[in-house]
């Protein structure tokens, strides 16, 4: 920006800061009006109560008391909101020369500073940022002057990734602390707001850069450890931390499409480690696959095993039992045979 443009941009920034100041007063007025409305309702209920009591209208008096009670519940909340708005420090809108100095300082601090007339935005580009060996590229911080007066409702600036290397599982996350072009300022929030309110542009952009060049492992959108995702060992699908599963036997990462779950104990398994029940073909882990049919020794899940036998062996065993029974006959037949034997003569010689 040359000097002429710089002064022009400073003028735009100044107007945006005046709008911000105006919006703060408008919010105060709106909150004050809410509070005054609640107070007036309370006064109205007080009059109604006096009239009701003087005429012995106790039901009406009770209604007035209840309404007043409801109003009283709301008043502390409204008062606290109003108080926090009124307590906000008065910020002078800086003069044109001060803002121009800020813009000059900005140009010294950053290599690329430009004003986008179409978007009415001050754009500052950071150097290429690498966090924990993951290159995230350069970022452009775009401060929309028209959105400055909305800064208490939404962020007036965007973070654009110029050479995006987003998280494997979410292309909207271009930085551990940026989602959908919005920076989550964390501990920098209050200082950033103060800098914007006071028109300290160089401080504002420097602090945003400080957040972008710092990784907070305790609260990222996507941890850098999972930035490139974890590939499923079978199909290669990239999973984020919340969706990744690990085989309980070999420890390989496995997605929910490829995993198998032991039908008896519920352990997660990959296809290489999973055994299967010889009868129902359901997956089994190594421990549960030790359960075998006592007769044929085929692997059997708990539900297919009966009296220690697989269904086939169980059936065979039952058939054998039947045959034995048939061979031995029923107790009645045996008794009859014995009786017949006793009555018939035994051949001798």
């Amino acid at each position, binding site marked *: 920006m040359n000097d002429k443009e710089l002064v022009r941009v400073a003028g735009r920034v100044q107007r945006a800061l005046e709008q911000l100041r105006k919006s703060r007063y408008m919010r105060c007025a709106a909150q004050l009006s809410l509070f005054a409305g609640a107070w007036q309702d309370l006064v109205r209920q007080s009059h109604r109560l006096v009239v009701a009591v003087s005429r012995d209208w106790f039901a009406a008096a009770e209604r007035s008391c209840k309404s007043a009670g409801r109003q009283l519940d709301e008043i502390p909340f409204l008062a606290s909101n109003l108080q926090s708005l009124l307590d906000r420090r008065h910020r002078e809108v800086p003069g044109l020369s001060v803002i121009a100095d800020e813009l000059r300082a900005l140009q010294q601090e950053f290599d690329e500073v430009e004003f986008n007339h179409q978007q009415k935005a001050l754009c500052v580009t950071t150097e290429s940022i690498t966090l924990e060996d993951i290159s995230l590229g350069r970022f452009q911080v775009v401060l929309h002057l028209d959105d400055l007066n909305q800064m208490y409702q939404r962020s007036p600036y965007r973070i654009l990734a110029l050479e995006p290397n987003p998280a494997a599982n979410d292309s909207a996350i271009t930085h551990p602390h940026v989602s959908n072009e919005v920076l989550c300022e964390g501990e920098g929030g209050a200082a950033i707001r103060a800098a914007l309110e006071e028109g300290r542009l160089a401080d504002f952009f420097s602090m945003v850069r*400080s957040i972008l060049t710092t990784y907070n492992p305790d*609260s990222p959108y996507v941890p850098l450890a999972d930035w490139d995702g974890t590939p499923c060992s079978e199909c290669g699908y990239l999973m984020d931390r919340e969706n990744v599963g690990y085989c309980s036997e070999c420890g390989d990462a496995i997605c929910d499409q490829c995993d198998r779950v032991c039908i008896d104990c519920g352990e997660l398994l990959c296809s290489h480690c999973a055994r299967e029940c010889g009868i129902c073909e359901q997956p089994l882990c190594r421990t549960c696959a030790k359960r075998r049919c006592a007769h044929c020794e085929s692997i059997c899940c708990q539900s297919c095993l009966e009296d220690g036998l697989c269904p086939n062996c169980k059936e065979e065993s039952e058939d054998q039992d039947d045959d034995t029974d048939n061979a031995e006959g029923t107790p009645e037949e045996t008794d009859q045979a014995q009786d017949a034997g006793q009555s018939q003569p035994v051949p001798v010689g």
Partner: protein
Amino acid sequence: MRLLYINNSGGGFADYLDVTDGTTVSQFFKDKMPHERPEDYLIRVNRQPVPRDYVLQANDRVTITPTKIEGAA
């Protein structure tokens, strides 16, 4: 002598302070942020970088901005 001190740590505040004549920027930092390391901060006087032995002047504007600020999600 009086100077404007802007601290961008924490809540971020700006205030006028009195300091003794001859105070260097390095002494000022040590005085204001005794437990911090100067290399973790961007220290500017009148929006310009200065050497650590720069002697502060009346009406100087001193800005201290952390170079590491933890964002969130």
